[in-house]
């Protein structure tokens, strides 16, 4: 048996927030209130487009959402990262998430955060949970400013399955021995490539699929 890895989606799986929450935090915390207001106004105008993107697929949604970062300075993104993490993500970590990660670590797994979140936030979550590796989305920066585009590969949907395979191959992890955890139907490709898929806090559609596949269903969002 090879050394295994455990791959965790983040939003809705380990934390109750989603990609929108830290984005809103950044929009609200610009250098001046006026800029914040302007960015928030822009975001509201884009809301219908974001809604349509979500209906289409997760990758398109991610790309649309991260356009809201266009023009933010690298300094500001870094400066606010700790605060955004502490204010938005950390309190939203599900009770039981740390135990679950620790349980994987105790088994000798490499624990990988595989998330559509931005890398500087996912990295902070990695440290907080005691995970080993982060595979997350990266903003494209030019001249110290975010362009609003993501550097490829965009971590979402089927691409997560591809990235998982590549990571497992590079790390010498047999896919049959690997575990994957997600709350999202868009992560079914990622869940399908490992030997041990676990559905976490699922919606009805994913729960039905999990029952059909006999995947374990975990509820980190409920108090035991």
């Amino acid at each position: 048996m090879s050394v295994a890895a455990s791959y965790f989606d983040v939003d809705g799986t380990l934390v109750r927030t989603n990609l929108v929450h830290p984005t809103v935090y950044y929009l609200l915390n610009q250098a001046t209130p006026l800029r914040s207001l302007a960015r928030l106004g822009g975001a509201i105008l884009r809301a219908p487009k974001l809604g349509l993107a979500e209906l289409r697929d997760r990758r398109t949604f991610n790309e649309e959402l991260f356009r809201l970062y266009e023009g933010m300075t690298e300094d500001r993104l870094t400066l606010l990262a700790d605060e955004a993490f502490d204010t938005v993500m950390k309190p939203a970590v599900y009770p039981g998430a740390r135990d679950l990660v620790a349980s994987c670590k105790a088994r000798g797994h490499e624990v990988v955060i595989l998330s559509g979140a931005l890398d500087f936030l996912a990295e902070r979550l990695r440290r907080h949970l005691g995970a080993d590796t982060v595979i997350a989305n990266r903003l494209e920066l030019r001249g110290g400013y975010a362009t609003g585009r993501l550097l490829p590969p965009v971590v979402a949907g089927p691409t997560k399955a591809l990235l998982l395979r590549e990571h497992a191959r590079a790390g010498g992890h047999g896919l049959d021995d690997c575990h994957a955890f997600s709350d999202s139907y868009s992560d079914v490709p990622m869940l399908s490539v490992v030997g041990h898929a676990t559905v976490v806090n699922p919606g009805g559609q994913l729960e039905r699929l999990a029952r059909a596949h006999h995947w374990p269903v975990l509820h980190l969002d409920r108090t035991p």
Partner: protein
Amino acid sequence: MNHPCVITLDRRSAPRALFSGDRIVEVDLPPGTRVLYPKSPLAPLKDPDAAIRYALHHPYGTEPLYAKLRPGMKVVIAVDDISLPLPPMKAPDVRERVLTIVLQLLADHGVDDVEIIIATSVHRRMTGPEVRHIVGDKIFNAWWPKRLYNHDAEDPKGMAFVGETSLGERVVLNKKAVESDLIIYVNLNLVPMDGGHKSVAVGLCGYESLKPHHNPRVLRKCHSYFDPPASELNTVVERMGRVAQQHLNIFTIETTVNNRMFDRPLAFLAKNEDDHTAAERAALKALCYTLDRTPDDVRDQIFRRVPAPYELTGVWAGATESVHPHTLKRCFEQYAVPLEGQADILVAGIPYISPYNVNAYLNPLLVQVLAQGYLFNMYRGVPVVKKGGTMIITHPCKDRFDPEQHAPYVEFVHRLLPETRDALELHRKYEEDFARNPSYLAMYRRGNAYHPAHPFFMWYWGEAGRQHLGRVIVVGAENDYIPKLLGYETARSMPEALDMARDTAPPSPDITCLHVPPIAMADVTLPKARGDRA
């Protein structure tokens, strides 16, 4: 001369009504077949509460409970979980009665640092409503969930090392209990395997302390689980229990109930079918007809919602080893039926419930637990069936699992059993890794799933039966692949199963039918004229 509970069928005998999961099937068994019925329920104690108080004040092997109490001490009360009695009993549960009196006694003596732990070991956590059912509204409302809660065998900070046996078996138990000044164990004894040292040493332990006895090597040496002196499982548990006894201050309260499993309208299910009145015959026909035509989910609910009218038949308290012989004696008084001679073929209906599927469906692995585990082991002396004999069971063997409670069972049955049915190989190759599966551990700790080691233990539970029996044939299975995974053959009807069994049996085989539930066990002796042993 047969015991009155052992009936020999003749040509005029009525068909026998056997459970087939949550249905009842009527089967014709050949003339000469012996059918072993449960004994009538023992008379209940007239005043259960007075009996409990008497037991606490007149304990065996130690001072009365009140004399052990002092203000400011830390007390942990551990309580047997919902795996017994089966099905859950009508309110008030025996545990509610005992707890009510014990808590009052503690309060009267100024003991207020008290916690109540449901001693689940690696069983699933009980839900709030289930706990409410066994402790009653008053205690539940006052204590749940902060001071009344489920044991968590996987809490890294919640377990403590107690000591080691002379053979190096490590006793690791619930830390709260270990650190208390007094552990009061409230037991409800359904079968002679329960209680004694098993209460604390198993009920409050975790995977590490289960491994020394819940393994195929030990379980192969149990002849049977319900005959403690002949059970290697009991030997190891006692050895580990004595370590707990040395280091901890334990006051044991054990109780027994009679076998009044069915309330009056269904009481005829425990009767010899030849003795049914016209009304009972009609009721049986109506019951079979109705269950056959009721949708699965509704049928589940019918059985789950009917609690058993069990009655308290005994209560004893004191030091574990002084108390337990009294409990065992009362158990055998209720269950043991003398039976002379072994059978070539054993017939038994598999009911809808086991200790491990309260409020859930009896999945295929648990069918095996009931067949080769519990029902095969319902004996003292020698097994009811001869070595290499055949067991015929009735059950639909559906490929159905409770997705929450039995999540790890699914993978065990569908991924591991196709690899091998060899318990030693499963133990060696897969158990340790499977028992550490993070998802299943999280489901055990945060949800209501059995611990991932549990399906292995369940498979080992059938090990003594597997080693002894030549064949198992299922009548009424709705598919072939589940019986095949379990190592069973299938037959469409009882006559077909008996014909199949005769192929490997001597001419004119002896056939015995175990007519359970309610619980009955056989005290099997070999005929004096014939010296051949099992």
